[in-house]
């Protein structure tokens, strides 16, 4: 295959909005949504004479992210101005960081998709302000500027070009997202744009030491489009090279609908941002003590949590890995176990049925509408034999639709398990009467026949009969025959 002759080289620049209450240089709220231009003030609208004041929380969050990604923390950092004109950038410069980012030389470990662990190096993490938003539609050809987002704090996490496949890129971004969620510095809502990535892709002939010319896809905000976009670019670049052409260095826009990239600007249009230190802001000096104190606030990260799960809850490697990949699921797991015990069952419910429903509904874990109270009650009801797992699955569907106490759902729907011996016996006798062939099969040594009979009984009782009791009673009754 043609692709086998090439090596793919990928680097990601991940932008994450920080979940501070206020903006990076003023006290406006960072809240998403809101009527246009209601979360802004003279400072983030860049009125003449206004000055920025750096939000200390932003520095703390960035340092926290740096420490969680094993970075060195820059003790003498500063803010720089990146100058360019665009209507969503009210000062005509973005306050960012140029040559002294807060964090540098980090690394994180990812799954390479082929079962191996791989280290991806982090070049730097710096703080900067987000721009506003242009509303191009509905205004008779014009555009309107909404500055609610202008000045929302961001960190930009830049990786080294260590990524070698779209799967690795996806896993890298998942890992970054998971770490940011764990340390609670960003809510990472990709659909709201609070986590997005610029993806740099190049290809080179295997064995080449020189990197190929790269293209950059801007503002990718779903795992799906990142994977598709990378795959598209790999094919496109290889086609260009195989046809004897040269890959142009350019900035691209990925279009999810047509499934292809479009050129936004080429190298000739490359802007000169005229970076220089922002004279309105004093340098950022961090003491060892400060960095130590931030370090102390770091929660348990996925890696160590995973190890603990193997030991404390006796989960398998795979289960522990899947659970800890999402802070939200992992927290739900621990809270539920603390209320109802039975870690194996809790883990199974989260990784199978709950994850399946999330997948089907294209939801993120933090959108689960119920919490550990409901989930632990559900599992306790199964353990006590009040409901069967079949009913429990139906209760779970209900919980996603209209979250309330599982006992209440069962009561309202009349789903209580039939564990009354007389009632069970009645069902068993009826089924046996209707299925003489199965009795013969069973007696002839075909164990499968028992399963069939129980299944019929469950069907008849609309899932409410206690399956253990059914099992027992079928055997008893048939042995009597």
């Amino acid at each position: 295959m043609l692709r086998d002759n090439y090596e793919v080289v990928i680097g990601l620049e991940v932008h994450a909005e920080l979940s501070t209450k206020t903006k990076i240089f003023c006290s406006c709220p960072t809240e998403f949504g809101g009527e246009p231009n209601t979360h802004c003030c003279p400072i983030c609208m860049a009125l003449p004479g206004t000055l920025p004041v750096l939000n200390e929380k932003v520095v703390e969050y960035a340092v926290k992210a740096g420490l969680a990604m094993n970075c060195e923390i820059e003790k003498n950092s500063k803010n720089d101005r990146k100058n360019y004109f665009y209507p969503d950038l009210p000062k005509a410069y973005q306050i960012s960081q140029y040559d002294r980012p807060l964090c540098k030389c980090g690394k994180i470990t990812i799954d390479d998709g082929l079962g191996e662990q791989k280290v991806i190096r982090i070049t730097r993490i710096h703080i900067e302000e987000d721009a506003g938003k242009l509303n191009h539609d509905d205004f008779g050809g014009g555009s309107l500027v909404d500055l609610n987002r202008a000045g929302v704090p961001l960190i930009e996490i830049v990786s080294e070009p260590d990524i070698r496949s779209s799967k690795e890129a996806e896993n890298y971004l998942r890992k970054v997202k998971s770490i940011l969620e764990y340390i609670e510095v960003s809510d990472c809502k990709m659909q709201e744009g609070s986590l997005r990535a610029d993806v740099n892709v190049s290809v080179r002939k295997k064995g080449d030491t020189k990197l190929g010319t790269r293209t950059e896809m801007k503002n990718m905000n779903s795992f799906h489009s990142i994977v598709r976009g990378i795959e598209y670019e790999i094919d496109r670049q290889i086609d260009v090279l195989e046809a004897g052409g040269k890959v142009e260095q350019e900035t691209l826009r990925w279009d999810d609908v047509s499934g292809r990239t479009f050129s936004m600007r080429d190298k000739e249009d490359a802007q000169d941002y005229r970076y220089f230190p922002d004279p309105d802001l004093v340098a950022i000096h961090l003491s060892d003590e400060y960095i130590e104190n931030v370090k102390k606030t770091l929660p348990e990260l996925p890696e160590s949590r995973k190890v603990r799960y193997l030991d404390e809850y006796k989960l398998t490697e795979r289960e522990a890995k899947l659970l800890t990949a999402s802070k939200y699921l992992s927290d739900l797991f621990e809270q539920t176990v603390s209320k109802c015990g039975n870690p194996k069952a809790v883990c199974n419910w989260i990784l199978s049925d709950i994850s399946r429903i999330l997948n089907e509904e294209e939801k993120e874990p933090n959108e689960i509408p119920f919490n550990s109270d409901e989930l632990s009650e559900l599992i306790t009801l199964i353990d006590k034999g009040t409901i069967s797992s079949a009913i429990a699955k139906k209760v779970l569907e209900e919980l996603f639709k209209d979250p309330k106490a599982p006992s209440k759902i069962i009561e309202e729907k009349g789903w209580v398990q039939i564990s009354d011996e007389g009632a069970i016996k009645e069902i068993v006798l009826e089924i046996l009467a209707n299925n003489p062939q199965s009795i013969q099969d069973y007696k002839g040594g075909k164990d499968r026949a028992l399963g069939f009979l129980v299944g019929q009984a469950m069907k008849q009782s609309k899932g409410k009969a206690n399956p253990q009791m059914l099992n027992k009673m079928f055997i008893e009754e048939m042995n009597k025959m």
Partner: protein
Amino acid sequence: MEIYELTVHELLEKLDKKEITKKQILDSYASRISEKEKDVQAFITITDDNLEEKLNNVSSNPSKFAGLPIGIKDNICTKGVKTTCASKMLENFVSPYDATVMEKINAEGLISLGKLNMDEFAMGGSTEHSYFKKTRNPWNLNKVPGGSSGGSAAAVASGMVPWALGSDTGGSIREPASFCGIVGLKPTYGLVSRYGLVAFASSLDQIGTLTKDVEDTAILLNIIAGHDSKDTTSINHEKEDYTLALKDDVKGLKIGVPIEYFGEGIDKEVREAINKVIEKYKELGATVEECSLNVAEYALATYYIIACAEASSNLGRFDGIRYGYRSKNYENLKDIYKNSRSEGFGSEVKRRIILGTYVLSSGYYDAYYKKAQQVRTLVKKEFAKNFEKYDVILAPTAPNVAFDIGSKIDNPLQMYLSDICTVPVNIAGLPGINVPCGLNNEGMPIGFQLIGKPFDESTIIRAAYTYEKNTNFRKNKPEFKK
């Protein structure tokens, strides 16, 4: 003496003795404005309407300054009153907020009589670069008042306001104060909040005072100085009472006079006047010695690189999108930017934006901006070295007296040279004060400046006060020669 001729501390004394009323003070200034403004052209916006009502509004304010007038340079944001920066770009701009200094001024109940003319965005040394009008020097209406705070200086010198606020990025308070024969103080960088001062060069800009005498300088500085959490470059410095420095005593004061300030560009009469100042200080018991500021000769180039670089970025926000001037002539976004900025800015502003853009460009940054920052460090060090030996440094404020209107307008380099004595102080972030020290043979004022250690405004105020007390130059009055 007419009321408009009095200093603020003299007004306060007369108020105290009930010899005059605040209403009389306001009326005196209002009638002076209606008499002299047509000749001097110091104001962009006059706000001397409804004075009785304004006086009423501050009647419950316990401050002794409540109801006294003041003038404000038109690059300081005033809520509800236009702040134009003397630019077509902001011709109709009304700030929705008050600058921190205005909050302080308002808290004292001071009443602003108007917004004063200046060079556009404070770029210039003659106030000829105003989009609206050319302000005249009250001593001779054919001469410039200096700049960029030329409106502030001319308004104080002509008695249209008793005192005024200005801003000084490279000499913009001290040079016009010198040209108009008044006292002008540029405080230490960081002493007065810049919040609400429309930025020209952020690392150099500082709001300061223009007053009739040194005592008023101390009083007004007391009002405007102080840390502001809205300006992270403002220093959390212990609040001082500068009027305590008003002592007639320089005995034992060590004054350094840098030889570099007396090079060939300095006018002969200015040089002679400064020499007399030196003699005076010696006579009053100070020791005066020649000293050296080697890097001073690089200060002007350094200043123009740093100031223009910062300006090119600071003025980016005037893009025709959200507020300010927007060209009617556009078909796309690029046109809005290009035409709004081409039509909205004057030539001097455009010259500096282009220069600043150039020195920050990739490939040139190291040779210009970075080098300038290195020289800036050297200038600071050399001042610091001198301050190990001297309490204050004395120098001319400007190499010459006020020049004829139009005589330098087509020669920017000649114009820039007027800043040669004042810019080193901004580069080093030091306090500097202009004190009048005589008239030349044409009757135009000459001034000298005293430069102090960082946050040592008190010492230069004491030295200036002592000089003023022992000379009569403050008593000279402008003649409005035509």
